[in-house]
């Protein structure tokens, strides 16, 4: 799953290396429009609908945070 998520992130913002252990939000790698696009891609990829309540920056600040968000919304 980790590799799949990194692939989605890279497709979204190819100029960044999402394998780095950094906070994507604090580093400016993802903005609010990226998060919206990411949610749409994750919804499609995993056939879920991430709750609007979970669409907050901290839930998309790292691959681990994204995996936790996905698990919560399965």
């Amino acid at each position: 799953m980790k590799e799949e998520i990194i692939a989605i992130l890279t497709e979204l913002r190819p100029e960044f290396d999402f394998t780095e252990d950094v906070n994507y939000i604090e580093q400016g790698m993802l903005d609010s429009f990226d998060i919206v696009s990411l949610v749409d891609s994750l919804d499609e990829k995993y056939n879920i609908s991430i709750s609007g309540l979970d669409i907050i920056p901290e839930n998309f600040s790292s691959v681990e945070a994204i995996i936790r968000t996905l698990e919560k919304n399965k």
Partner: protein
Amino acid sequence: MICSYNNKLISSVISVVPTNEIDFMDEVDNYSFPESQHRKLAKVMGFDKRRVCYPGETISDYAVYGIQKLIDDKVITEDEIGAIIVVSTTPDHFIPPTSNVIHGQFNFSEDVSCIDILQGCPGYIIGLMNSFMTLDSLGDKKVLLVTGDMLSYRVSTRDRASRPIVGDAVSISVIENTKEINTSYCSIKNSGKSAFAVYIPAGGLRMPITPETTIETEDEFGNFRSKNDLVMNGDLVFNFIINETPIMIEELIKYANMDIKEIDYFLCHQSSNFTLKKMADRLGVSRKLMPNDIVSIYGNSSSASIPVTFCHYFNDLYTEKDTLKIMFAGFGIGLTWGAVICDMPKPQYCKLINYPHKN
């Protein structure tokens, strides 16, 4: 405020839109989007086409054209109107009220009430509630509810948060008392502590427009705006809408002693495709019952977006029933959020027409 009104009817609706169609892909160079975001955002947010007025056009121009059309088509007569309620954030002038300007273009009685309400995205809900309240004092007279905005004047061309979705439109709803027994349920909520989540800094008395307020500066996301332009904290507004609106809707359904499955359609303010899809999912209703693509066709036309949605989908809504139970819901500027549940027999007249630009 949660309340109900008896025996009210939205009998006719007309929406007037500009013919000037803007394509998002023609404007992407204005924004600081990375190349990879363009097409993805177009799909997810509904950034596509939008209708925008031409310079010099105002709310009253479109409203007068729409009302004249209602008169010409024998939907209303001037002597049966008891009130004109205009809901807009972009009035023709500070003084006089736009409702009075519209009143002056026709032979309405001097007894007609003229009321202006300054509201945007939730404006149709507030307009409906005020129309229902007014009708309790009007007997057999009717209300002309005019809702709409020309916000394209006040959104920076280099603001990617707002410019790609802003559209202009004006709708007129004819609302009257009816002998049919029905109850309309209404809820409206406000959070003034978040009032500046959507605002225009300059132009009022707090900050008059000066040469300095026209200077554009760049924000942390690469948007350029002047103090005369709309500023929207998109993250805050999205989270607010997603958190609060479903709670309000569920509370209203409970107040109406209904089940959510009894509602045939949810016609919401068209803020973005994404927001409305998530709203439908949160409420557990089919996305098909909550149209979400109007923003891609006409743009977000503020207080006109709900009646524009109704007019656009009119022929599709009444295929199986002659009377629908519809929930209208609006949210945004204020911050304000509200909804109305009403029985809606198929209106005698419902049209979406283009404004005949002079140039």
